[in-house]
């Protein structure tokens, strides 16, 4: 059934009548990233005002694939249960060339993780769940139909000019978080430009509602018979909604391609019948671009306002949530006076690294899907040809490498005996415990996790002792008998040792709060 859009209430803001006190944080944009940012900051005790020029959730499904890491973040924000209950869980992707399956992947082949590899869930549901959660939190002040029209950044904050249905007002904030999407008005107001690549290709994206027993898998076709010479993608979403992406070519006219009389015959060729309802249609071009710097004095860019990728790989929304994960605790620590600007510089550095990895992966997939004429097409077609004959070439077929959290290049102490998956810079792997899940036990601050040894006296953070189970041994000990891990508030491993040493742990803890 079609989503029931319920407008959120506009409430005249106090600033219309009298100047408001300076806010620690103003978030521009109540999309998934802005809302998640507000909730994450509230977990660290930071109040925020969220401004949005609109008063409904996203029109159209937009971001639909939410990764395991995003679900772990949603779990901390308090919406994972709703998202899992509503979403379509999947982990297998199949890639076809013409009629033949040439490659498949299973994103979560091992058991013992709380969250599945992926769920598909329309962005409007994610936004709805986040708004419902944010409305329960007194530290969050949600203001719909509040449009930022000007920004004046200074040395100790920024002043925002805002328009409402009742007229204009101004707000001053120590930090402004631009979560206002790929076409970010804040980015334009600061005169900042994206750098990177725009691909000369157009894709049609359509949501249709139909009764079908299509499996919960990602299906991708190169040169399918139903869409000659081009590519196509099919995803199942809740409410019997299916997402279909069809490559159109650069010559396509976007306005014309979005007309139902053009779209419906194309979809009929994909699904083989006309027993469906067209729910939403859009046409997009591929871009892999980013801002050179994400932190501009008091203005910090988060999510699509900072970087955009082509969609095959689910690296847009998921990448943005990893920005939120990385920034929340750092900004809270700076506002609290617990850390200095170097910690914010580490947001710029680490998420810049993450954005580059996402851009590299999505640019490669885009190039494989839409090769240039000549040698690029030659190599692409011959990989597909060999994929029908040899196993090595199947892995080279690239219809998108799906979002995984990057491993940050942190310089924390390491020990080569310990498993590579849990090295410094990586997200701490989850594992089942007798009373729940490991990630749920880590809390909102730095924590020293010990396995098979006692923490030395005088460790200046919480200590969590883990029992030795087959999963904790495999994921945290490897060949070693004992270990301890220093884990950041965003669940990223900062340092690890086989032998605990109070001085080394103290050094690593100091480095953690300095963005080292």
């Amino acid at each position, binding site marked *: 059934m079609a989503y029931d859009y319920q407008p959120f209430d506009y409430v005249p803001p106090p600033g219309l009548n009298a100047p408001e006190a300076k806010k620690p944080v103003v978030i521009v944009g109540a999309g998934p990233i802005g809302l998640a940012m507000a909730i994450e900051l509230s977990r660290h005790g930071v109040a925020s005002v969220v401004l949005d020029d609109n008063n409904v959730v996203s029109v159209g499904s937009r971001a639909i694939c939410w990764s395991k890491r995003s679900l772990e973040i949603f779990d901390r924000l308090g919406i994972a249960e709703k998202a899992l209950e509503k979403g379509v869980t999947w982990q297998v992707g199949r890639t076809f060339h013409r009629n033949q399956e040439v490659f498949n992947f299973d994103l979560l082949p091992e058991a013992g993780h709380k969250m599945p590899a992926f769920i598909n869930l329309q962005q409007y549901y994610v936004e709805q769940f986040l708004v419902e959660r944010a409305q329960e939190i007194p530290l969050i002040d949600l203001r719909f139909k509040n449009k930022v029209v000007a920004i004046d950044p200074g040395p100790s904050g920024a002043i925002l000019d805002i328009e409402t249905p009742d007229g204009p007002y101004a707000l001053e904030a120590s930090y402004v978080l631009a979560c206002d999407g790929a076409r970010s008005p804040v980015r334009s107001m600061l005169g900042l430009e994206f750098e990177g690549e725009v691909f000369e290709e157009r894709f049609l994206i359509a949501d249709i509602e139909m009764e079908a027993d299509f499996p919960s898998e990602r299906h991708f076709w190169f040169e399918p018979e139903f869409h000659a010479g081009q590519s196509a993608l099919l995803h199942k979403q809740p409410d019997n909604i299916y997402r279909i992406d069809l490559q159109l070519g650069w010559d396509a006219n976007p306005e014309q391609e979005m007309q139902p009389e053009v779209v419906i015959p194309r979809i009929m060729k994909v699904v083989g019948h006309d027993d469906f309802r067209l729910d939403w249609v859009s046409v997009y071009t591929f871009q892999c671009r980013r801002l050179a710097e994400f932190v501009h004095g008091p203005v910090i860019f988060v999510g699509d306002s900072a970087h955009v990728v082509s969609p095959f790989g689910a690296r847009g929304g998921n990448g943005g949530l990893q920005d939120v994960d990385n920034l929340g605790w750092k900004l809270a620590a700076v506002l609290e006076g617990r850390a200095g600007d170097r910690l914010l510089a580490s947001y710029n550095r680490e998420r810049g690294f993450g954005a580059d990895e996402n851009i590299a*992966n999505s640019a490669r997939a885009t190039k494989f899907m839409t090769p240039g004429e000549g040698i690029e097409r030659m190599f692409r077609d011959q990989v597909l040809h060999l994929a029908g004959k040899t196993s090595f070439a199947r892995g080279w077929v690239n219809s998108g490498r799906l979002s995984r959290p990057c491993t940050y290049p942190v310089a924390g102490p390491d020990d080569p005996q310990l498993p590579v998956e849990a090295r410094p810079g990586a997200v701490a792997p989850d594992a089942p415990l007798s009373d729940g899940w490991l990630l749920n036990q880590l809390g909102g601050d730095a924590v020293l996790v010990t396995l098979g040894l006692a923490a030395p006296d005088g460790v200046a953070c919480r200590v969590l002792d883990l029992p030795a189970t087959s999963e904790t041994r495999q994921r945290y000990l490897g060949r070693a008998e004992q270990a301890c891990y220093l884990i950041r508030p965003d669940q990223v491993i900062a340092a690890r040792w086989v032998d605990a040493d109070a001085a080394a742990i103290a050094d690593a803890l100091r480095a953690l709060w300095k963005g080292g």
Partner: protein
Amino acid sequence: MSLTTTPNLPEHDTFYAELLAAHRGLTEAESHALNARLVLILANHVGDIEALREALTLAKS
């Protein structure tokens, strides 16, 4: 079989991107020549005539 046809290059996406980058801006004739040199260089690196014969057969099939 002495020719490896199972997955053997974990960084295949990186290699593929660098391969295309090496061809960027070349004419068709220059691309052919680059590919020819690459085949010769890699054949020497493989250093196994049986494997190379199997590769020729697989490529022609």
